[in-house]
């Protein structure tokens, strides 16, 4: 082989390798979702456990009572992986038609979810049948991207026995910050704390929402540094560093840690979603109460979190997918899910089904929060905010940094 030939071959090989690299890199651009020839629709969702699978299957089986021809296959990874894999799944071959999303993630999945407004109009869907705050949460760029199946306002769970033992009156459907801090101090002694806190931004945001403030402005832009929001976050940090009614969470703590502290009796109160009611009630060997997130005025202002069904942008039969979604979110389906799975339904007329078997105080608190609720509004970069808050929040709770410094750092790092 001559030197020239060798060079030519080397150049050809190099080009081939480069092309292969580029082709591999560009392989993420395929598209084209479809429903199967027999009308079976595929749904991609989080399936972390058998319990999750049972939940999705019961949505389908309940919907089939009204539409026996409905066929939906269910597939998906665990909850944490879902948010990454749903993007790669839609980029691959044979993508699914129906997707699930949390309202808090709707912004992040904007590129994947088909705007549903035209389908809502053509199917004569009355959006006022759904919780307004959840529809607001599912709205991205002025268009609804998913039909919610639940609307769950963050609530304050409390250990009623601990309140009674400390000579305190358990809270009703109103609760002022002043009273809350006073109660939490009375409930704190030695290793027992008044409150358990998990890392992350969602609960501090619910705390701020209770006073009507948010870290996202009206245009949907990240606004963590507005003084009202910063003050709210600082007051939440102060529960640990100043009032000393809670332990500082560690950055790597999962929500299990704070939940276990509550159910074991080590912490008398916990801010969580009402979807945990059944789990806590089963785990706790004390009388559990539920009230609103404390606010300065004492009045309820709920922050709703919840999930819903959307349609992939590259679904070839969005009409069929939308009809399937409507079948899975009828009042009877949501009532049955509220009774069996403990979800707070996104249709207000189905909410009484959730209250069955629960204390009247819990039902009153959830009703009060839903009457004046705002969605957990996020931005497309919220994952970064959540991650950074887990990292930096630790220093805020420990009093090493102020909320002003931390919010400023996060806002600048996210770069909006």
């Amino acid at each position: 082989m001559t030197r020239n030939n060798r060079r030519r071959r080397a150049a050809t090989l190099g080009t081939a390798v480069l092309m292969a690299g580029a082709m591999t890199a560009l392989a993420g651009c395929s598209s084209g979702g479809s429903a199967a020839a027999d009308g079976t629709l595929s749904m991609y969702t989080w399936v972390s456990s058998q319990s999750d699978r049972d939940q999705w299957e019961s949505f389908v089986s309940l919907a089939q009572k009204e539409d026996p021809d409905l066929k939906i296959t269910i597939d998906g990874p665990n909850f944490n992986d879902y948010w990454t894999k749903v993007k790669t799944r839609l980029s691959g071959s044979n993508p699914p038609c129906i997707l699930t999303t949390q309202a808090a993630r709707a912004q992040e999945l904007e590129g994947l979810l088909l705007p549903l407004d035209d389908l809502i109009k053509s199917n004569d869907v009355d959006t006022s049948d759904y919780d307004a705050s959840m529809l607001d949460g599912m709205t991205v760029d002025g268009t609804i991207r998913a039909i919610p199946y639940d609307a769950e306002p963050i609530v304050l769970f409390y250990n009623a026995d601990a309140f009674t033992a400390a000579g305190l009156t358990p809270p009703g459907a109103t609760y002022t910050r002043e009273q809350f801090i006073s109660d939490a101090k009375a409930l704190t002694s030695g290793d027992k704390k008044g409150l358990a806190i998990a890392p992350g931004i969602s609960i501090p945001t619910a705390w701020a929402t209770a006073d009507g403030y948010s870290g996202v402005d009206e245009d949907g832009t990240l606004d963590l540094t507005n003084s009202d929001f910063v003050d709210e976050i600082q007051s939440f940090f102060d529960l640990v560093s100043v009032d000393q009614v809670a332990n500082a969470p560690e950055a790597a703590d999962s929500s299990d840690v704070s939940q276990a502290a509550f159910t074991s009796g080590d912490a008398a109160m916990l801010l969580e979603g009402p979807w945990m009611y059944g789990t806590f009630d089963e785990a706790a060997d004390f009388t559990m109460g539920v009230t609103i997130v404390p606010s300065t005025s004492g009045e309820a202002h709920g922050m709703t979190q919840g999930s819903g069904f959307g349609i992939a942008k590259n679904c070839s039969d969005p009409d069929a997918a939308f009809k399937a979604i409507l079948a899975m979110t009828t009042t009877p389906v949501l009532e049955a899910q509220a009774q069996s799975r403990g979800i707070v339904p996104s249709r207000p007329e189905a909410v009484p089904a959730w209250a069955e078997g629960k204390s009247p105080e819990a039902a009153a608190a959830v009703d009060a929060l839903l009457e004046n609720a705002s969605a957990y509004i996020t931005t497309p970069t919220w994952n970064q905010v959540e991650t950074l808050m887990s990292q930096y929040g630790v220093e805020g709770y420990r009093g090493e940094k102020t909320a002003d410094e931390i919010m400023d750092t996060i806002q600048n790092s996210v770069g909006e």
Partner: protein
Amino acid sequence: MAISTSPGVIASSEAVAPAADQPAVRIPTPAGKKKKGDGLTALAYLAPGFTGFVFFIVVPLIGSLVISLFEWPLFGSPTFIGFANYEKLFGDPTFYTVLLNTVIFAFVYTAVNLALALGVSLWLTTKLKFSGFWRVIFFLPAITPMVANALIWRLMLSQDGLLNSLLGTFGIEGASWLSDSRFALLAVITMSVWQSFGYNVIVLSAGLGGIPKEILEASRVDGTSAWNRLRFIILPMISPSLFFTMTMTMIGAFQVFVQPQILTQGGPGESTNTFVLYLYRNGFVFDKLGYASALAWILFIVVMLITALQFAGQKKWVNYDK
């Protein structure tokens, strides 16, 4: 100089050198026969490894270089932005923080790891009973899943964990090992050393086992002290093993990911955020594959430079003489 014309035939350069005024004369191979080499056989042997190398190393490497020139979401169309990811990277304060954290981790972790592994290896080569058993014990963490180990360590080092409970029995109030920025990186390094020094113990023990006993006995007869034997005989003779463990440990250290991810999530603040953790989050949590790829290339260059420096430096202290 000698030129081979066909297998087994060597001609002197004088015999074939052309005269200055004559064109070069090519020595013909026997008529009708092409020169037969081992090319195809060699290619067949190379093919499995080479195919793997091309498809799993070269192609992804070039793929990531291409991606680093784009704004590339996990779903949707990529946009070509040239070197903007690299420009952004050099203006990103977190990039310098994670780079510094990783460098501190890599050097402290490698130094402590090697010192501990060397000490334990020397101890195991003494007339110790059950040395094989101890070797297995030290090696166990290296073969157990790192995620499981890190979770156990998180439970031990948490505020109400085992360590602070133990300290409490002696009346000592333990620190917040994972939440205090003064201790968090130290905790990550400690867990990492525990996890992996057993592997280096095995490699260094093999190196120590390769030292001829006669040399050590002769030095004892000559009345050398233990320190002098270590300094002038043992260390030079295991220097190739030391060099291997140092290089591989350092390369692994720059890729640290699981330990901060599980123990501290990179916190508090950015005090334990490392290069690969930051890279992973940018790619698969923040949906910035292009930026993550640019980070990966910078890491590749940093690791390559440090490894090159180690190879350059080995000439001064690694002894390959038998």
